[in-house]
């Protein structure tokens, strides 16, 4: 009699539990609440229908609750039971996976990844072959993720500009079967991201600051520029990091300030106004925008044995800089917190990298000629020409 009663009670409670569980995914907190409710119910029930009292009533109620909740589980199924605390992180072995479950084959969702599943080429990890038939060197698996192993040369080199349409280029077919299987495919290499040792460090910026200050003193400028300010200006406003280009810009802008031409040099408030700095003219207080342009010496390449015979001359580079600058002066006019006219944009030209100092006057002239040709010669300042 008690056996039938127990079976019926257990069946009823488990039916209620299963219904509840199918409605609400279980969490540890819900498990605890459910267990407590069941325990209270049984504790009261045992109190009314038996002579058990005190600790015996408590322990027997606890045991019944335990048996009702977990009693029917065998050890293999227990791992998959959502009620059991600690079973959440368990990944069932592949042999026991439900193949209709979308989590299958998807490591991002906790499933094991296989290359033999539907839509996945069994040879996905084999070395890719070029379309031309020859075998291309095998890229390491960790890096193949970016184009799914397709390394074929898409160009047919048949002459007409229209022959090689990009969408037909296998390298551009970004949805390889492997990638489609795994939405996290592109992130795999990212996870293994190495530390980039070539990022500009704060220490490096401070060193440049110290060099800059001593250079300004040598030039006879009285400068009152704090290290913090130099660091702030040397931070790329787009990335929030120090970088070589921002340091170079800062040196030019602050030299103008050291010369007493401008004050309150800062990065533009509106990032769309893509000029290096904004400042006020000393004296008039007029707001001006500053852009610092430098030039590299191609001789640095020939020092390394690199043939620079086909390179443009320094003069033609300077000429183009001059032309582009005039165009740049007009680009941001009318933008919120941008320049109101071309007259508010000043370009600094810096030829300090040009080793042959006799070349510099020619480069300056090239900039001026270009500006004249482009129709606007104001707002040009040359740095380091002495």
């Amino acid at each position: 009699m008690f056996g039938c009663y127990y079976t019926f009670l257990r069946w009823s409670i488990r039916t209620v539990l299963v219904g509840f569980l199918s409605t609400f995914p279980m969490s540890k907190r819900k498990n605890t609440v459910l267990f407590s409710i069941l325990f209270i119910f049984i504790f009261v029930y045992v109190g009314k229908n038996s002579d058990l009292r005190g600790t015996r009533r408590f322990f027997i109620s606890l045991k019944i609750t335990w048996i009702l909740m977990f009693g029917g589980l065998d050890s293999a199924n227990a791992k998959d039971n959502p009620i059991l605390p600690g079973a959440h992180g368990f990944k069932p072995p592949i042999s026991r996976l439900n193949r209709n479950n979308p989590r299958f084959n998807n490591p991002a969702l906790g499933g094991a990844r296989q290359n033999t599943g539907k839509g996945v080429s069994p040879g996905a990890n084999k070395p890719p072959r070029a379309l031309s038939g020859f075998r291309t060197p095998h890229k390491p698996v960790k890096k193949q993720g970016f184009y799914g192993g397709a390394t074929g040369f898409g160009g047919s080199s048949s002459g007409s500009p229209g022959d090689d349409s990009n969408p037909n280029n296998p390298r551009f077919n970004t949805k390889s079967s492997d990638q489609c299987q795994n939405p996290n495919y592109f992130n795999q290499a990212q996870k293994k991201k190495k530390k980039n040792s070539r990022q500009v460090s704060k220490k490096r910026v401070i060193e440049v600051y110290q060099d800059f200050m001593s250079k300004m003193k040598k030039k006879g400028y009285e400068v009152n520029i704090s290290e913090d300010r130099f660091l702030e200006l040397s931070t790329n406003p787009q990335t929030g990091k120090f970088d070589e280009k921002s340091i170079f810009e800062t040196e030019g802008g602050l030299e103008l300030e050291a010369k007493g031409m401008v004050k309150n040099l800062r990065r533009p408030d509106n990032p769309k106004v893509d000029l290096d700095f904004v400042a006020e003219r000393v004296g008039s207080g007029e707001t001006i925008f500053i852009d610092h342009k430098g030039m590299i010496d191609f001789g640095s390449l020939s020092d390394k044995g690199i043939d620079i015979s086909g390179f443009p001359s320094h003069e033609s580079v300077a000429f183009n800089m001059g032309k582009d600058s005039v165009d740049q002066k007009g680009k941001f006019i009318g933008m919120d917190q941008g320049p109101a006219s071309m007259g508010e944009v000043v370009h600094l030209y810096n030829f300090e990298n040009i080793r042959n100092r006799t070349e510099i006057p020619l480069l300056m002239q090239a900039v001026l000629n270009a500006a004249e040709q482009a129709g606007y010669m104001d707002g040009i300042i040359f740095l380091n020409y002495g």
Partner: protein
Amino acid sequence: MENKFERIIENLEEEETLTLGDQTFFNEMILDESIQCSILGTLTFFEVDFKRVDFTGSTFVNCEFKNCRFKDVILRKCEFWNLTFENCQIERSNLTRANFHKGTFRNCIFIKANLTASNFSEFEFIKTKFNNSDLDLIGARSIKVWKLNQCTEIEESSNFGYLLENMSCDG
């Protein structure tokens, strides 16, 4: 496979600027590198994938990029002289304020690239498409844009992006 380009970067001294020339790189993957203000001359990149590479402020002279992919690459404020890009895909890359002088984009596709305030002079666009790219404030001088077999020449434009958007579609 060896990643020659990455090895060159790894061998650089701390704070040394990358100055490189007269080399060919084939079938390489260049990943997570910061090589700002580099000077690259007479280089050929064939089937090279660049991902998350920061070239900010670099100068490229006489370089060829064939069948290359650029993804999340920063080419901001770069100077390009005599450049050829052929069958290249440039995706989610930053080319703001880059200057291109003399060169060609042939069969290239820009996807979600930002070319705001860039400049092109004496440049040719052949069968090149721009998808969801930011083409504001692009300056242009002496440009040729090929669509099918028709060529449009642009002497000077301060709103070249608008023309590119219209002329490169379905080309």
